[in-house]
């Protein structure tokens, strides 16, 4: 295993130190492993808390700041944080208007956030669960679709709405609407290596790739021979469009790198994706290309499409000032 780390058991602790020191937008509660805004938002505003296993950076700690999250709980690598962390985050950021929990649909995350909401005492908590990964089929016979890329777009859009002063019900309603309107699909060229394990989670021969991966280094739904970018674009575009009609309104498109894929490849893939979307009659109103929700050092990419109405687009364009996403501020 080759990584820029110290003791593999303490990667999260050590990475939070660096995040704290390099990011003026946040301060880190190291005891609870909670990333908080350096400048708390004003009283009376709904606060947004998310979190999950680490290894997906910049998600979620890199999305704490004006216009996005108020706090993010950092679990161990690929392991949901605990209810204690979530309670600490929730009580720290509540400004009297309640807190929205943004939870990616994984059994562990859902259960831990459930327990946290029960334990949050007097703070009013609403929860939105993202489950946008179309790679998970037959979702009634599984733990349901995984929450992946839509989480990023949701945190941005709903963060802007909370900043405007909407109440918790309105914020939660919008969040559910965003969650319902987005779909994702990903592929991996390599596995990733969990630091505490020290070797790749799965073996992938040099001529094979995984299709339909999540963000936890798990193998995908199927293994296929490595293909050119144009064919990989088909593998990720088609299942999304087959699942949700994306031609009825403009979309926000995110082409996301899994952590070890360089930007030049993401640019190239975006070109292939964009031309397929054009052919399918999908209008891309906004796009984002880069590493936003990663799987440690996995090579590969995922595509997220969000059917965005005018309100979502307006909120998308609103100022945001976080380590991972910044404009207008």
């Amino acid at each position: 295993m080759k990584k820029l780390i110290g003791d593999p058991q303490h990667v999260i602790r050590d990475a939070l130190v660096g995040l704290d020191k390099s990011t003026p937008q946040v301060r880190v509660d190291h005891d609870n492993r909670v990333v908080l805004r350096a400048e708390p938002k004003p009283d009376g505003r709904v606060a947004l808390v998310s979190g999950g296993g680490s290894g997906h950076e910049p998600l979620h700690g890199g999305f704490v700041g004006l216009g996005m999250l108020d706090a993010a709980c950092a679990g161990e690598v690929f392991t949901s944080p605990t209810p204690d962390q979530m309670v600490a985050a929730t009580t720290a950021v509540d400004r009297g208007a309640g807190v929205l929990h943004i939870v990616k649909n994984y059994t562990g995350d859902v259960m831990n956030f459930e327990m946290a909401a029960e334990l949050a005492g007097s703070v009013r908590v609403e929860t939105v669960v993202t489950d946008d990964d179309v790679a998970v089929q037959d979702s009634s016979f599984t733990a349901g679709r995984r929450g992946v890329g839509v989480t990023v777009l949701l945190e941005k859009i709903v963060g802007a709405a909370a900043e405007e002063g909407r109440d918790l019900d309105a914020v939660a309603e919008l969040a559910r609407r965003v969650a319902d309107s987005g779909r994702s699909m990903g592929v991996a060229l390599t596995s990733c290596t969990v630091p505490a394990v020290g070797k790749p989670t799965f073996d992938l021969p040099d001529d094979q790739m995984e299709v339909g991966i999540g963000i936890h280094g798990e193998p995908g739904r199927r293994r296929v021979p490595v293909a050119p970018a144009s064919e990989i674009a088909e593998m990720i575009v088609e299942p999304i469009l087959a699942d949700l009609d994306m031609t009825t309104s403009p979309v926000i498109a995110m082409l996301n790198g899994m952590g070890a894929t360089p930007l030049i490849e993401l640019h190239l893939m975006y070109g292939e994706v964009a031309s397929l979307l054009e052919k399918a009659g999908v209008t891309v109103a906004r796009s984002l290309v880069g590493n936003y929700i990663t799987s440690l050092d996995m090579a590969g990419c995922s595509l997220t499409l969000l059917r965005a109405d005018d309100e979502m687009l307006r909120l998308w364009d609103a100022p945001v000032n976080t380590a991972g996403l910044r404009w207008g501020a």
Partner: protein
Amino acid sequence: MTDTITVAAATAWLEAYADVVDAQRDHLTELDSAIGDADHGANMSRGTRAAVDKVLADQPAHLDGLLKAVGMTLVSTVGGTSGPLYGTFFLRLAAALGHEGEADPATLAAGLRAGLDGVIARGKAEAGDKTMIDAMDPAVAAFERAVTGGSVLGAAASAAADAADAGRDATEPLIARKGRASYLGERSAGHIDPGAASTALLFRSLAEALAA
């Protein structure tokens, strides 16, 4: 000598469990690499070690205090799927055994059943979904049968451990319908479920602690 599980025996159970989880840490992670996300060994080892530390520091005098401390510690140090589930198991077991210094076989059987029910309520998995339930459910049933049949605690726990092992092995051909492994669909078949493996260790540790 009365046939009960004492605070000392329950502590020994926990210590034995933490030890075997440490010893099997890489194996549990290996299993989770195949159909999950390669953290089950680390999760269980972190949690059981923290629970032992907590219990040795607090020295609770009653079973409920002990087992509640274990459950709370697991919930607050493990995270992931196994944290809330094993945490719930111990919290329900604590409630069922009550504010006592020891528990007789029937009470322990009822406590284990309560723990299992808690795990099912929280995780909503059924037998055959390829989860820890597939080891826990037969283990609890075997324990109950043994106690009803008049076995002493050690023998009942040993029967439970054997049933858990068999349940664990029986997860191998299954297609997962809960947890991360379910994302793999048919590719999940052919691998033992990591949570079933850690549950089998839980009952084997109980058998060891009660045999001693």
